[in-house]
């Protein structure tokens, strides 16, 4: 039954169209190159639009796409052609705002990559189902993902949560180490990154 609102993918790209984090919920794009091609053309098509204050919308290869940009990050949600546009935009807004909350207002590519775990958890909390892009080379029994496709079932996709506060709350509560208070943790995190950065530059 296709009457459940369906999301085909959620994409977070940078200002050059490269992936930061993506999640696909539809088998329409059979492999990574098909997905990359889709992302590239989507990015090129929407790049010049101004989607910074209000979410924008486009029809593209018979999908409906809603998107919103901030700094060097581009957020996209793709849905079926006949999907209720306002449901799609609710999902987009939920994702967008949750990321904003989790990154404490500094929403840009650098921050997003440094907190990629939070972004991935965030995606996990928004829609249930789907896979990251990378493939596990198919052998006989990949349960259930491969099995489901082999039997011709549609992997059921369902929106889990759209309220940004709830999403961010769920993600953050998991991440806060009970032992280390929040402020302390960020400092230690900052130190860790700094150390890593330094080590890397020395290695060059």
């Amino acid at each position, binding site marked *: *039954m296709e*009457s459940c*609102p369906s999301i085909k993918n959620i994409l977070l790209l940078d200002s050059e169209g490269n*992936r930061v*984090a993506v999640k696909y919920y539809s088998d329409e794009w059979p492999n*990574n190159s098909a*997905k*990359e091609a889709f992302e590239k053309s989507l990015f090129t098509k929407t790049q010049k*639009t*101004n989607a910074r204050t*209000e979410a924008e*919308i*486009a*029809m593209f290869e018979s999908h409906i796409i809603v998107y919103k940009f901030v700094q060097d990050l581009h957020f996209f949600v793709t849905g079926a052609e006949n999907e*209720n*546009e*306002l*449901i*799609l*935009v*609710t999902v987009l807004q939920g994702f967008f705002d949750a990321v904003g909350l989790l990154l404490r207002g500094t929403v840009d590519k*650098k921050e997003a990559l440094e907190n*990629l*775990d939070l972004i*991935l*958890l965030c995606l*996990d909390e928004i829609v*249930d189902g789907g*896979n*990251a*892009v*990378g*493939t*596990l*080379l198919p052998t006989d*029994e*990949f*349960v*259930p*993902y491969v099995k489901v496709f082999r039997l011709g*079932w549609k*992997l*059921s996709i*369902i*929106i*889990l*949560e*759209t309220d940004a506060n709830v999403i961010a709350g*769920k993600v953050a*509560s*998991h991440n*806060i*180490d*009970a032992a280390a208070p929040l402020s302390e943790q960020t400092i230690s995190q900052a130190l*860790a*990154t700094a150390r890593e*950065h330094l080590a*890397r*530059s020395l290695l*060059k």
Partner: protein
Amino acid sequence: MAQPLVKKDDDRDDEADYSPFLGIEKGAVLQEARVFNDPQLDPRRCSQVITKLLYLLNQGETFTKVEATEVFFAVTKLFQSKDIGLRRMVYVMIKELSPSADEVIIVTSSLMKDMTSKTDMYRANAIRVLCRITDGTLLTQIERYLKQAIVDKNPVVASAALVSGIHLLQTNPEIVKRWSNEVQEAVQSRAALVQFHALALLHQIRQNDRLAVNKLVSSLTKGSVRSPLAQCLLIRYTSQVIRESANNNQAGDRPFYDFLEGCLRHKAEMVIFEAARAITELNGVTSRELTPAITVLQLFLSSSKPVLRFAAVRTLNKVAMTHPMAVTNCNIDMESLISDQNRSIATLAITTLLKTGNESSVDRLMKQITNFMSDIADEFKIVVVEAIRSLCLKFPLKHRSLMNFLSNILREEGGFEYKKAIVDSIVILIRDIPEAKESGLLHLCEFIEDCEFTYLSTQILHFLGIEGPKTSDPSKYIRYIYNRVHLENATVRAGAVSTLAKFGAMVDTLKPRVFVLLRRCLFDNDDEVRDRATLYINTLGGDGAVVETGEDVKEFLFGSLDIPLVNLENSLKNYEPSEESFDINSVPKEVKTQPLAEKKAPGKKPTGLGASPAGPPSTVDAYEKLLSSIPEFANFGKLFKSSAPVELTEAETEYAVNVVKHIFDGHVVFQYNCTNTIPEQLLENVTVIVDASEAEEFAEVASKPLRSLPYDSPGQTFVAFEKPEGVPAVGKFSNMLRFIVKEVDPSTGEAEDDGVEDEYQLEELEVVAADYMLKVGVSNFRNAWETMDADCERVDEYGLGPRESLAEAVNAVINLLGMQPCEGTEVVPNNSRSHTCLLSGVYIGNVKVLVRLQFGLDGPKDVAMKLAVRSEDEAVSDAIHEIVASG
């Protein structure tokens, strides 16, 4: 040495490009994943490694089975850590790894422990993961926990269980169906999303039970649904119920319409829009029902949010196709959207306006469109062009400005599809609006002066050849055409030569000039061009004298062929050079029905220049050749008709068999196409045993077994029956496939010597009246009908009883008769209550038959039909009536 390195670090660009994943490499990360095995786990470090692995997957990296298994086993070690954040990442990682059945066992106990944990987050996520990766066997063990979780007071846990239920329903429906009571309780939950998930699951459990869905909808539409998403779902289910109940309900108040209308006042825009859209999509919606929906959509049009404007204008655009009047109220808001920043919105607004606008607003609209055409994409331009075409057909008086617009955009930059759409539109306008002809042709002439698409150039030249000579001053086109002979590639030059010749043949005064031009073409460096020029010069009168061109020459060169080109092509391919010359009359005239997509626009004139796309190549000739090569069937005479293959087995069975019925005057041959889908088997001596006890007029005369049927290479076996000559005998045949099976060693491909005899039951097959009818179209039904003797007309009326829809009834009768629908009359417009359908065909014995069917709705669903038949033989007319009466 270190100097440049430090400098590089200070570089600002480098700083901006900094990424924690710079230079990340799969091999290194897999190495790093060894920390999962440390006795003293460092949660933060482990989290980082998992993030890196997920990052790689996200970038499209491929993991081999061995690598994935290794990571999976390492990850399972992490259940030892009590760190909540790390556990959360472990859950995500396991889902991404999609472990195989034997691997799942490793984590099952850990996940089951988490499922009963006191921490809600553990419970929720463990349920989601476990239900993702488990198979049915484990499910019975955890069912009890899942049922509890559905009614858990923590909404996160309840949602997780419900969502998992939705996934599991596809693999283990019988188990999930037992949860109905709990799910029903969850529908009443205070938490919005729980309600949404519960409703989705409940509906999926019941979706095959119409009554239960009906009950669900009627109880929930009374209120109590709080979540906007759940409300949207409910609206969808409601429209589904309305759609289905429309079949048995008497006209009158639509059930649940009040609910939909009430949703238009909901506080969430998502729900308002869903309801408005549902109302506009109701079957046979009345304007009174539409009004409130249009009103809210109109409000959305002036919203500050692009998504709202887009949603509204897209829906209104669809409404405008069927109810243009209902949308006219929004015209003012629509016009302001033409300048919308979002080009999708602007295009939708324009095309809506073109559909709803009146004659007086056309000029103003055209001006606005001209400004905006340059900055939209080709695909939108095509939409606009199509809208303008239909507008022009609606207001023929405005053809001048619309034609000008089309010719202007034709001159601008654009891709092939876009240009083709414009050219097609101009051609249609030329055909339908006589006043537009001359200016339209000149526009096309100017276009080919500078056209980069060979396809379009040749099509236009061909069209000029047909229309040009009929204009008041044909001579003015000659220059354009002859220019092509100078300046173009060989294909276009050849096309131009043919067009010139057409002018010469049709317009006698132009003939001397055309001769001069054609003679110049004799020196062209392309064979085809020279050949054409020579042919035309000779057939048109050669010596240059002004002579009347013979009628039959004209007919031969420029008349339309009355046989489908595909069939001609096939016949020519099959023709083997011999003493006997090719006979064009032997080409079958049966028309393959065009793909449905071609018939989207009912009642419209032919679609532009491009001849209808060639259907799949005709197989009739191939059959004829095949059958005549079999000595047993050689004396059956001429093949009258071959049916389309009828499947005799279900898809994906061991042996796939379908049958083609070949009808001869006094015989019927069944051709069984068999495919062996088992690699380990070789079938030999394959025959079909046919029981014709339910087909009294048939007697088996011959059969031709198939000697061997290896894996995956189809073969045929035949059975022939005799039947009374020229009589459309009908009957039922049951079939049994009989063969000898031999085992094949898959590695060597060699078959064993000994085989076992075996049988395989096939489905029944029927010879029906439609098998004796050839689909042969006529170009002008009315003419054909008038020329047929009215004495042989038989008229009668039939009641077809309750039918799903008028269209369904029309289709059923067409299929019953097996005739060719003419003039697109097989398409029934939505919501019409009566319909006329024209059919033509050739009945066995080569009797032409024409049928006029008039359908009408009698009461809500009862269909009545008046059948008028004319044919060359009154007995055949009666036979047609018999087919319908007994069908």
